[in-house]
């Protein structure tokens, strides 16, 4: 009798546990779905294929940076420089992709293949990331400080390089942000490909598991033979590369490279990672979680604008959601 009651109790307990596990794992997806349903009911124009693609294209630049910063946060670090690196990559790349007859020509008569600006953007991104990584790993500068420095330095370089917008770009360049393949916007494809590749890298390569190990317990990882300096430098370099890629996409999307682009985007990216379940203490987080987090921010922005909510209120709602997400995360990890 008693044992039967106990068994039932255990059963109930298991039920609770698995519900908890389910909510821990899929809670944010449920929140995203609830938001989709709510906005669809409240606004007619919301749930159309056009608007949904619009949302994903809106978040694609931020999403790329969020993927990079997720990897960084997984190691227990942070990257505050991504917005500035985005701008630096954008002005460098667009200066090499202007039409010969542009009014704001940086290099007169320059006509280089599309591969050059693309490569330059990616390389400058990777280089800034490498510098971050080297400062953090070799000189033991806290990531917050190293990337805060990069935030102002990269912005400064972008402004020195060009203090005015570089527009009138080649059609090939404009395709990156404005084109579509089989009806799917190209930026959306870029984001998906990067997300899938990163997911595979994190789960199925040694480097990926070392990223988690570093955030899980850096000292234990080192004693287990992990070259932690190399992993850190690699992670920041990758994050920088993705910032450079975001610079390409964003400048192409708006048709001009501007030194003031991407201000504050790193904070949205960090928010996306955290809403998506990435723990700021490292070791916990997934790419698909971050993508869902970015979608939540995108849907919120888009839905509230469609409902004619004041822009200032939108920022307040966003800020509140971020804090609530972290509170939930803290409770989960207790």
């Amino acid at each position, binding site marked *: 009798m008693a044992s039967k009651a106990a068994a039932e109790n255990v059963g109930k307990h298991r039920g609770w546990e698995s519900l908890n596990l389910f909510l821990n794992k899929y809670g944010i997806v449920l929140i995203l779905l609830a938001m989709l349903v709510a906005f669809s009911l409240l606004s007619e124009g919301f749930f159309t294929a056009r608007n949904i693609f619009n949302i994903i294209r809106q978040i694609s630049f931020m999403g790329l940076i969020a993927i990079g910063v997720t990897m960084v946060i997984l190691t227990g670090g942070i990257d505050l420089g991504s917005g500035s690196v985005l701008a630096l990559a954008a002005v460098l790349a667009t200066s090499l992709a202007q039409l010969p007859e542009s009014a704001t020509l940086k290099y007169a008569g320059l006509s280089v293949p599309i591969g050059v600006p693309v490569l330059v953007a990616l390389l400058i991104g990777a280089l800034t990331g490498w510098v971050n990584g080297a400062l953090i790993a070799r000189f033991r500068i806290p990531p917050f400080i190293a990337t805060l420095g990069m935030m102002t330095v990269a912005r400064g370089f972008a402004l020195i390089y060009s203090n005015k917008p570089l527009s009138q770009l080649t059609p090939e360049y404009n395709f990156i942000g404005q084109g579509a393949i089989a009806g799917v916007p190209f930026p959306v494809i870029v984001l998906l490909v990067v997300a899938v590749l990163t997911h595979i890298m994190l789960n199925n390569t*040694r480097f990926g*598991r070392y990223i988690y190990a570093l955030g899980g317990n850096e000292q234990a990882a080192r004693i287990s*033979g992990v070259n932690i300096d190399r992993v850190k430098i690699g992670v920041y370099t990758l994050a920088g590369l993705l910032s450079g890629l975001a610079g390409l996409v964003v400048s192409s999307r708006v048709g001009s490279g501007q030194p003031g682009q991407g201000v504050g985007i790193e904070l949205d990216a960090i928010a996306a990672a955290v809403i998506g379940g990435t723990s700021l203490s490292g*070791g916990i987080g997934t790419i698909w979680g971050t993508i869902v987090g970015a979608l939540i921010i995108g849907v919120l922005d888009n839905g509230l604008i469609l409902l004619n909510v004041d822009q200032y209120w939108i920022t307040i709602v966003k800020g509140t959601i971020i804090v609530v997400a972290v509170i939930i995360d803290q409770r989960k990890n207790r």
Partner: protein
Amino acid sequence: MGEETVLVMEHISKAFPGVQALSNVHLAVRRGTVHALMGENGAGKSTLMKVLIGMYLPDQGEITFLGRRVKIESTQQALRMGISMIHQELSPEPYMTVAENIFLGREPLGRWGLIDKKKMVADTRALLERLEIDIDPNTVMRTLSVANTQMVEIAKAISYESRLIIMDEPTSAITDREVAHLFRMIRALKAKGVAIIYITHKMDEVFQIADEITVFRDGQHIATVRAADTDRNSLIAMMVGRELTNLFPKEEATIGEVVLSVRNLTRSGLVHGVSFDLHRGEILGLAGLMGAGRTEVIEGIFGIQPIDAGEIYVRGERVRIQAPADAIQHGMALLTEDRKLTGIMGVLSVRDNMMIASLGSYTRGGFLNRRVIDETCGREKSRLELKTPHMDQLIKLLSGGNQQKVLVSRWLLTVPDILILDEPTRGIDVGAKSEIHRLMSKLAQEGKAILMVSSELPEILGMSDRVLVMHEGRVGGEFVRKDATQETIMRAATGQRVAA
């Protein structure tokens, strides 16, 4: 005893998961005396003191202080009642001044509730002068030497005007001159009627300063004696005299050639010229008291901390080890002392924790071979009788013994020749403990060389073919299995010449 007794602790018991730290212990301390607490590491001295100052709540027992039954629930409460403690691990506020440290939490307030810094500095100066400690109250704490930091802590504990002061190994960081100074201060306190509980491993000090001595062992009260009525040998006998039980003794293994040689290993201030050889099939026990430098030797060998001098040879060849990765490369494995701090990656899965050191052997074309990894994990799970629902379980949710098995597995998967095990069975239950002992024995038979650090003498005696005893950063004695006894090891560990 009557009125003279300041403190009586009776029937105190305290259990932690897997360990009975104190069982039905009692202690009585008289006014104006120094009462020494002695015992091996883990005997229960510190736990009892933490119960006394309210850091731990006892599972049962009564405390009578100054004739009144009390229930002590916080260190603040203990301080208010008149009990202060000098902790073994110093924890000053490094960026505050000496005066601010001494008055932390009880700063004198002036007008408008602001801190009266002048008074604080003047009071500190008066206190330090009275105690003849030559330190400026305005010095920033972190610029002080370890010895001076210790002196400030002592001054701080005295400044509470407590009726009872607990000193947990107060001389571990200070020189002979300062020890003499401390003893002068202690005698002055005694004269004023203050009672002192003095925890130490050092025999010399006990006979210099203590009036009474209580010996603990395995969480039990063994004896309380007057210092005048006893001697070193009987104290040592009381500290170690237990039956060897619950142990799985090492089985015979063929001891082969030397695989690891350490020569003149030196780390400034911590390790002084340590040399030894480790053979195939051998378990070499590294014994010593806390702070003797055992872990520091291992950190040097494994490349966790840089060494200042010395050579390391693996199978006769000189090797340079600058990082743990180099040590692993040369066939070494290290199970660290602090499982939580340097062992497990708590928020990661059992699988990740098990595979981290050997992932390189499980890749194919740059990608991890998940099938082989899962097979390996499954095999390890049944081999070590690992209790986990699945390999995706977060390791922090396993018991200490099972976490330790995962870590053992992590290292065995690197197929090492030399296993360094730092306190391999600390804080795990008896069952898991004997399983790990059995495994060690088997590994030695397979020809692995094992260096085992342990603070538990029965473990050292039961498992080791040979024992090195460290004392103050040096090798204080070496014994082959048949000559090693609890008494000989304890003598070497407390720095007494090994009598023939």
